[in-house]
């Protein structure tokens, strides 16, 4: 790492850290998170390019090695080089690169790098304080290490798929979209690498880190795991809400414009019944809702004991009226009006946005989530998603668009011979 100087506040938090990343969809997101924080991430692809360059969608729907939007999104801020690791000159170049690096990030099948003489044990000989992070579907050891895996099969085997779907269990359970199985492994990879960098800072030592995507999915299902671990309960999937050992009432509602909202937790406190009633009145709907008297009763109580639902008639009626009032309002207003109206009334509900609706929303714009990234060969910029965290110093920044195939091969190899 470089010594502190006057411009360090403006440089990313990982400025001066070099990462060698072997291209794979299983670790690409981790490399992007590091690169956008200022690390010098050098992405290594085989001749012909990584297969993810063939993943759609494509710029203008025309396939091409430099036109994959999947590629654009996952490889921002990196430099890209081509090395043929099946040849000795290619392997020698990788060894030299690793010796110049702080971190190696890869997702090769267990045993593959050792067979090439490029695993941690080999690379650490010339770079003893190297941090080597491997992200594999089932970890580097264990009985399932050699299984073929995709994002879908990792999420199926790891627990998330069982948790997602509809009340109707004749329908298949659902994989959440967006290659989240790989993303979760990558999140743990980044946390691991940063942890190891901090330890190296106090000890001078590097180490090997074995990240297991299947294990990552397993410990990322909230009550799905801990209700079994603690009480041997099996969560069952439910439409648009938390899986549960026993069925619960719905919390996803269709609004007047045909779009959906998540109604969250129904009103429970006197102040919430008061503001719900005020909202109902402001929409001119009180006359349509005879149960409004129970909202008034809820608002006037000192407290509402939820454990009495089903036993105390008034509390049961108050609680039911809260839900029904939310249903009535949803049927009369758009999803966005329901969201903003409820939140102004102090009720935590959410509109179910599509990604682009969130992206164009005033809140995300005000937070600077829309960022422009220049593509010189197209003579223009494109809008990208922004930072996952707002750091004041050492800030997040997309420093360049994803590398074209072999774009930095000469530049990087020249640096090595200096």
């Amino acid at each position, binding site marked *: 790492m470089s010594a502190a100087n006057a411009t360090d506040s403006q440089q990313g938090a990982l400025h001066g850290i070099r990462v060698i990343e072997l291209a794979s969809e299983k670790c690409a997101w981790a490399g992007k998170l590091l690169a956008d924080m200022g690390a010098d991430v050098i992405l290594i692809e085989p001749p012909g390019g990584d297969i993810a360059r063939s993943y*759609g969608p494509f710029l203008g729907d025309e396939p091409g090695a430099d036109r994959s939007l999947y590629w654009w999104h996952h490889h921002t801020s990196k430099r890209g080089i081509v090395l043929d690791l099946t040849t000795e000159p290619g392997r020698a170049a990788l060894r030299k690169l690793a010796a110049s690096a702080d971190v190696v990030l890869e997702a090769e099948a267990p045993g593959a790098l050792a067979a090439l003489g490029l695993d941690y044990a080999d690379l650490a000989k010339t770079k003893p304080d190297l941090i080597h992070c491997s992200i594999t579907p089932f970890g580097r*050891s264990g*009985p399932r290490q050699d299984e073929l895996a995709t994002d879908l099969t990792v999420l*199926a085997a790891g627990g998330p798929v069982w948790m997602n779907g509809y009340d109707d269990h004749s329908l298949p359970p*659902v994989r959440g979209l967006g290659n989240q199985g790989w993303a979760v492994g990558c999140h743990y990879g980044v946390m691991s690498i940063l942890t190891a960098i901090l330890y190296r800072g106090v000890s001078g030592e590097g180490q090997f880190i074995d990240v297991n995507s299947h294990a990552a999915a397993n410990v990322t299902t909230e009550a799905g*795991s801990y209700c079994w*671990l603690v009480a041997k309960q099996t969560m069952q999937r439910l439409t648009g809400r938390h899986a549960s050992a026993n069925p619960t009432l719905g919390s996803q509602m269709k609004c007047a414009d045909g779009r959906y909202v998540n109604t969250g937790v129904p009103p429970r406190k006197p102040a919430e019944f008061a503001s719900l009633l005020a909202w109902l009145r402001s929409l001119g709907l009180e006359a349509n809702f005879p149960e409004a008297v129970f909202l008034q009763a809820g608002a006037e109580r000192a407290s509402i004991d939820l454990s009495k639902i089903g036993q105390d008639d008034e509390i049961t009626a108050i609680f039911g009226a809260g839900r029904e009032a939310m249903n009535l309002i949803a049927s009369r207003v758009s999803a966005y009006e329901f969201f903003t109206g409820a939140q102004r009334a102090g009720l935590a509900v959410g509109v179910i946005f599509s990604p682009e609706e969130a992206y164009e929303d005033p809140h995300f714009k005000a937070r600077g989530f829309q960022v422009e990234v220049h593509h010189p060969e197209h003579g223009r910029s*494109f809008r990208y998603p922004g930072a996952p*965290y*707002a750091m004041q110093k050492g800030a997040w920044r997309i420093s360049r668009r994803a590398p074209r195939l072999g774009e930095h091969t000469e530049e990087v190899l020249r640096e090595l011979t200096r």
Partner: protein
Amino acid sequence: MPTALGHLRICDFTGQLAGAGATKWLAAFGAEVIRIEDPVTNGLWDILRPMPPFVDERRGPDFGGGFNNHNVEKLGITLNLRTERAREILAEIVKRSDVVSENFAKGVLQRWGFGYERLKQLKPDIIYVSNCGFGQVGPYSDWKTWGPIVQAISGITYLSGHPGMEPAGWGYSYMDHTGGMYMAMAILLALVHRQRTGEGQWVDMSCTDAGLALTGTALLDYTVNGRPSRRENSPDSNHSASPEMAPHGIYPCRGNDEWIGIACCSDDEWRKLAARIGASEQANGDWVHDARYAGLAGRLAAQAALDAQLASWTRGSEKFALARELQAAGVPAAAVAKPQERIDQDENTAAWGLWPTVTHTKMGKVRVDGLPAHFSKTDWRIERGAPCVGEHTELVLNRVLGMSADDVAKLRAEGVV
């Protein structure tokens, strides 16, 4: 074994999962994480403290199974911040801390007199990481969220489900887990920045920002190609468009609510699957020779029919046996695992040590989620259960501020701790 983060002290106000999940990672790698809770409300700001699951019939703020899961290896003290003396003690702890972390609604810590400016006065290089659903800046920053709301707002819910149906979303707070991970990354990044420059800072974490960033490929299809995700037949998340694959889905197996995930990444994998189906003794496997299915484009165009035919074949098989057969044939496949199957019956999670048993002072021995990364030199350790309310008040005030047992007893009598 040395610890990776044993040199760090975290003054921790986090709770639930989106906050507590972040500091669980730090604690497991040896950081001294001091949870600060309110003695007057028995720490019930963290709604998981008294919530199920439970190990037995006992109830109360020290018996919540989820709370225990998210707060292993942390210390817990109580401070009644309504009192001046407690605020003085907090200030002394902040002076001796590296990080202050919280996931309150916007402005809570500020109202207690511990906003970033004050924290910085107490400790010039302090790292303050706040985490809430909409962040501390922006039009919605005063509004409230919990996990499913964050998922709804950030496009994650919308994208998940079957075509022509309402979104299925996620059956758990995926964005509480993930928001916690980004909070952990933010803390670690700020620590790396401090290691390099000596500077502290405030990081404004917003879970909805983190969620929306995860939909990036879909967003670029919109910003670059003008194609919105809100379109006919969306969601369709058991299929795969990026990368394109077919067949790709969750198919029924023998028994009640038993399923298998199958994905063919290439024509070669499809041919292996087709050969396996053609060779099975079950009749009517001829459909695999349908000329439309030879190439990816044809299989994608006829995906509904292909799915139905494949489902009719998988339906007769036991899911784990079928997954083993397909793996042996060179086809990516995995049974959809239920909690018991992946926790108690999966030899890989067992070999990994994924479900450590902790000792909780009142609950006794309880299994919890471990961590999915192993370090060769400074691996994680999860042995101690979550703190009971105020369990370590005396220990921490002694260790950090040098107070005696009598000092603490006096504070207790005065309602300070």
